[in-house]
């Protein structure tokens, strides 16, 4: 995954904020993957909501600063986005 690029949700994926956090939805999410994932981490929600605003590296840095994330947490966030990209949830913004 190229973190210097901006990303957007792939086709069939969508994110919506809820009172408890947010929902990440994928229409092809037949088992074993769930069709919906509940996201209750405030910094992940902040990232997913602003996904296409700027390159991912800059976005993660801004959110890490805002939430005071330690380096291991930032590494975990990068891993999370890697996984999303591998599953087709994220595609480079055209």
């Amino acid at each position, binding site marked *: 995954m190229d973190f210097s690029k901006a990303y957007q949700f792939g086709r069939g994926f969508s994110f919506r904020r809820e009172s408890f956090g947010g929902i990440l939805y994928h229409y092809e999410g037949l088992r074993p993957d769930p069709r919906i994932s509940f996201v209750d981490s405030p910094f992940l929600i902040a990232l997913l909501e602003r996904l296409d605003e700027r390159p991912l590296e800059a976005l993660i840095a801004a959110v890490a600063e805002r939430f005071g994330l330690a380096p291991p947490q930032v590494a*975990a966030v990068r891993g999370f986005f890697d996984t999303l990209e591998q599953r087709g949830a994220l595609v480079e913004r055209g």
Partner: protein
Amino acid sequence: MSSAASAKLSSPAVANAVRVEGLSAPITVTWEVTNRCNLRCVHCLSASGPEADTRGDLTLAEAKAVVDQLAAARVFQIHFGGGEPFLYPGFTDLLRHAQARGLCCLCISTNGALLNAEKIAELEALGGIYLQLSLDGATEAACDAVRGAGAWRKAVGALERLRHSAIVRTVNFVYTRRNAGQLDAMLALAGRYGATLRVTRLKPSGRGAESYADLRPTPAQQAALHAWLDAHREVLTGDSFFHLNAFGGRPLQGFTTCGAARLTCLIVPNGDVYPCAFTQTDFFRAGNLRQTPFEAIWAGSPVFNRVFRQPQGGACASCAALEVCGGGCPAVKHALTGRLDRPDPDCVLESAAAEGREALPFCAG
């Protein structure tokens, strides 16, 4: 990080939203666009058929305006059904409109009769389509006994035409007393055609109310189904068998509670809104989209808020199995008993008690 984005309801806030308060908008809206159908299945939940009166149905222009409202509410998925949705005039145009408005999944329940090569190509070109083909038996005789002569051949013909298609598809199978022995054969059939099997619960709604006594699975068949679903976790259920979780063991795949008015709702052909497809009675009517915007009905309907978005009360409130069975299906309770504060009529703990069988794990304490 996976724990931060999982489908578990371990967070109290998530569990409360899903089980009690409801989401800001449905995940899925089921939309019966027409009650016209080329079949007349004996268990049809909406009593659809060739004779259906369509004069009060939403026009295509009205339906597109409803799509706009659902998109504005940030609904993820519309699940089109009927009747046979491909009989709704301008249905493909409606799908195109929904996709243009950003709905990321359009699911279609169909009997397959109108799915010719041209229609399949049209759907493939659209993308984001998820087809559910109804087939209530692995053999022609078993299926057609419920769905009418020729239904099996039509559905299997459609599956054959879809065999090399990229369209995500399931074979939908309503589990009944008559076809209960066909689970393995249905799984094999679905696999042969590149489809996932989806088993759903028979409910006493529409013509299903008339055929329920004849088709309702026996307690022994319910137990057998639970064991089979536990062993076949690749099989989908539309979250319709959570009441069987009271058998104990690990809960079946999917939600452990009813999502009506909390995660989903139903729109019928004339624009009336209900909690789910099995609650199409005056008692459950939440509003009409010709008079009230969708978001106002979802947020403000008294039946949604006072009946569904409340902690479980009544006989199930103190039961140890409530956490995993959700108290069962409100639609079945209301249809068979006229009440919502009783256990599901197919509650496995009640069945065991009535038959004098040994207490199940949830009764042990």
